[in-house]
């Protein structure tokens, strides 16, 4: 009919698709293997920009620098989401389409596989010699006896058997291949669900705790806190962590390229309580050995120096005393920080500058540190006075907001420079009092995190791996045996055919093995 139409009009007439038809067509396209393949490759390509351009979620400062250095390209890349690739709509579109495609492919296959597992191997084809692997021979035995022997041989290969008629037997094995394949794909979905749970209900907070101080797990105590959208910060577990000691060792012996001064070990000795009034526990936190707390895990992700200074006014009364963390800027722990003396009279004082664990003064580059351990510690500070917190705006604890501050100068008009080593006191000019560098403590940079989805993700990933191995290692094979009367009485022609899913080098071997077993057991080698 269609042929006749085409001949008459010379055109190809295609069936018209209604809305349902188009939907079905789209679904078919989306769940096809080719689309999945295309989306996979697109996912690979789409992930690459995140490794080339700095990512805001990993390093916001580098991202800002990059945009500042590339005034034309930067904003455009920003608009296209290249600084936040893994949270960008286009990246989400790729993986969501991929997972829809996956679900649309895996669910029907699961149904089919379920049926195949409960069903029987299919009927043996009439002409086994047309199968990819085939062998036949004539043996001296009755057809029924030959089939019985063939069944034994196939059962020995742990194949599932079924006879659809008197003259044949069908056998199949390797259902685990498809089971593994489906488990792999379904487990991937659960990996994503685990990631999503971690994102929604997880939180992380970073805090700097100088040695001797105690951290209590409340929102206000964190330096930065990043909760998932569905986290209630008021429900944080009320544990405390006191840092008793921080051990740090650095490479002092090997002087090869890139080795001298490398960190070798960091250990924080801490005392924890699960809740107020609970028995204190002595624990350690090391790099690679986080501390499991109630409902959270504490990681030692940073460390540095907190010089302890005492500042007195002109009458000798203490107006500031304590450990002030300075943030390391390079591998030799040249650190920057600020000391904000809000209690100073008549004007507030702000010290800003460097802490150098092993200080040297270079004629050209100025003060710097040549080794990360505190071998020759020094503070290099400048002094400001005025209003430390103009307008009460939030500001970094490591820098001064100098908009309402004036720098204190020496008599010769140069800015005042203070150089202090432990135990030294510097008298501030103009009756402003004095600053004493008592000693230097270390601080621990703790990151405290909670991820309720991690075990689901890990378990699913391991399940996916197991499924993957099964799907790649197990071979799905069908073997059919058909018998027909041979020449003369008491002889039977036995024909064995094999069919495999995908490539199977050994299929012919298996088929010949079955035939050989039949011949051996009927006592008639070819």
């Amino acid at each position, binding site marked *: 009919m269609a042929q006749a139409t085409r001949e008459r009009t010379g055109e190809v007439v295609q069936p018209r698709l209604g809305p349902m038809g188009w939907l079905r067509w789209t679904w078919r396209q989306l769940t096809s293997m080719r689309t999945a*393949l295309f989306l996979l490759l697109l996912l690979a390509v789409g992930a690459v920009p995140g490794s080339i351009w700095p990512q805001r979620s990993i390093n916001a400062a580098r991202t800002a620098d990059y945009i500042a250095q590339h005034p034309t390209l930067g904003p455009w890349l920003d608009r296209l989401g290249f600084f936040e690739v893994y949270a960008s709509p286009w990246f989400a579109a790729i993986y969501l389409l991929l997972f829809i495609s996956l679900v649309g492919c895996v669910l029907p296959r699961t149904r089919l596989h379920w049926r195949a597992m409960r069903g029987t191997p299919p009927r043996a084809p009439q002409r086994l010699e047309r199968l990819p692997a085939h062998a036949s021979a004539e043996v001296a035995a009755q057809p029924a006896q030959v089939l019985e022997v063939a069944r034994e041989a196939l059962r020995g290969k742990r194949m599932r058997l079924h006879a659809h008629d008197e003259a044949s037997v069908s056998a199949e094995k390797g259902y685990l291949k498809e089971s593994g394949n489906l488990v792999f794909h379904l487990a991937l979905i659960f990996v994503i669900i685990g990631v999503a749970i971690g994102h929604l209900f997880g939180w992380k907070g970073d805090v700097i705790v100088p040695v001797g101080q105690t951290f209590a797990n409340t929102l206000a105590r964190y330096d930065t806190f990043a909760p998932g959208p569905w986290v209630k910060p008021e429900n944080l577990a009320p544990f405390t962590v006191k840092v008793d000691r921080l051990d740090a060792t650095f490479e002092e012996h090997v002087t090869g390229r890139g*080795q001298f001064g490398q960190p070798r070990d960091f250990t924080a000795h801490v005392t924890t309580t699960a809740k107020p009034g609970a028995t204190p526990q002595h624990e350690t936190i090391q790099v690679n050995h986080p501390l499991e707390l109630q409902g959270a895990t504490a990681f030692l992700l940073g460390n540095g120096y907190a010089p302890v200074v005492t500042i007195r006014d002109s009458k000798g009364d203490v107006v500031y005393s304590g450990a002030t963390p300075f943030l390391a800027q390079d591998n030799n722990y040249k650190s920057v920080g600020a000391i904000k003396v809000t209690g100073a009279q008549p004007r507030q004082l702000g010290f800003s500058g460097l802490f150098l664990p092993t200080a040297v003064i270079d004629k050209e580059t100025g003060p710097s540190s040549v080794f990360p351990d505190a071998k020759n510690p020094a503070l290099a500070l400048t002094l400001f006075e005025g209003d430390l917190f103009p307008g009460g705006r939030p500001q970094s604890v490591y820098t001064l907001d100098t908009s309402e501050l004036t720098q204190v100068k020496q008599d010769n008009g140069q800015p005042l420079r203070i150089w202090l080593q432990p135990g030294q006191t510097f008298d501030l000019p103009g009756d402003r009092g004095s600053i004493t560098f008592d000693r230097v403590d270390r601080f621990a940079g703790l990151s405290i995190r909670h991820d309720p989805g991690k075990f689901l993700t890990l378990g699913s990933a391991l399940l996916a791996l197991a499924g993957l191995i099964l799907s790649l290692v197990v071979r799905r094979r069908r073997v059919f045996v058909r018998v027909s009367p041979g020449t003369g009485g008491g002889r039977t022609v036995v024909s064995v055919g094999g069919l495999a899913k995908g490539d199977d080098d050994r299929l012919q071997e298996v088929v010949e093995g079955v035939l050989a077993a039949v011949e051996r057991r009927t006592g008639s080698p070819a």
Partner: protein
Amino acid sequence: MTNETLAQYANLSLYSAMAVFTIAMVCWALYLAGMVPSRDTTAVREAELVGAGGAAPAAPLGPEAASADPVPLRARKAAGIGGTMTWLGGLLLLLAVVLRGLSVHRWPLGNMFEFAVMGSMFTVLAFCAWSTRRDLRWLGLFVIAPVLLVLGMAVTVWYTEAAELLPSLRSYWLVIHVTVATLAVAVFTIACAVTCAYLLRDTLQRAGRASLLDRFPAAPAMERLAYGLHIVAFPLWTFTVIAGAIWARQAWGSYWNWDPKEVWTFVIWVVYAAYLHARATSGVSRQVVSYVALAGYACIIINYAVVNVFFVSQHSYSGL
């Protein structure tokens, strides 16, 4: 706390291995050269072809092909020496790795240099072990040449003095994660060599040009070999990703940070997953499938040679 003497012996063993591999490479090349039909055999063959009207391209290739072993004696000799030298070089590399490990009292996989040496060792030993089970003489040159190249890069560009590790690398996960990653890369390397040989053979065959590669296994068989290697390497790589995620959670607090190295590891995984899908998709030719596998290996090279050195990453342990 490093033992300088042992480190020097390790380097000595490494240089010896490189010298031995050079001999092995020449032998494998001689083997392939010996497989080329000599001029008079070619003449015979042409005469045969003319006689048969050019209708028998699969006809026996001269008198030698007619005998029981089609490989000429000099080629067999070269392959014998090549095989022995490859074993010897592999064992010398093993010695270099062990001595390096003893000299630094830790698992010798702490920087790019050590990674390159152990990866080369796994590649060579895997090739040797595999060659005991089937005739892989045709593959020798394709494996030893890149290994020698990588070792050359290792001793010149990536060399790092024997030393202890950064605290974040001190974990038994280093042994698990990085060793399996190295092993996976080694298997991917052999798979890539087979894939390259397959594509070369297939292209020449299609162009109708007789070549040395006609003496290699049939093109479909080579492609199946490459697939067999890839399905060994892919689960290893999957395990690498999972073990890396567990370690990342221990060391950095989060199991996945989209660090450049993680991104590229993920990209490699996805590209090889695409390879497996492409191979299972009807209508995608085996040539196209093989190019996807080569793209995956290109990503491995980028992940190692570019990301380690040039990208800002938490995985910056290259020691450079």
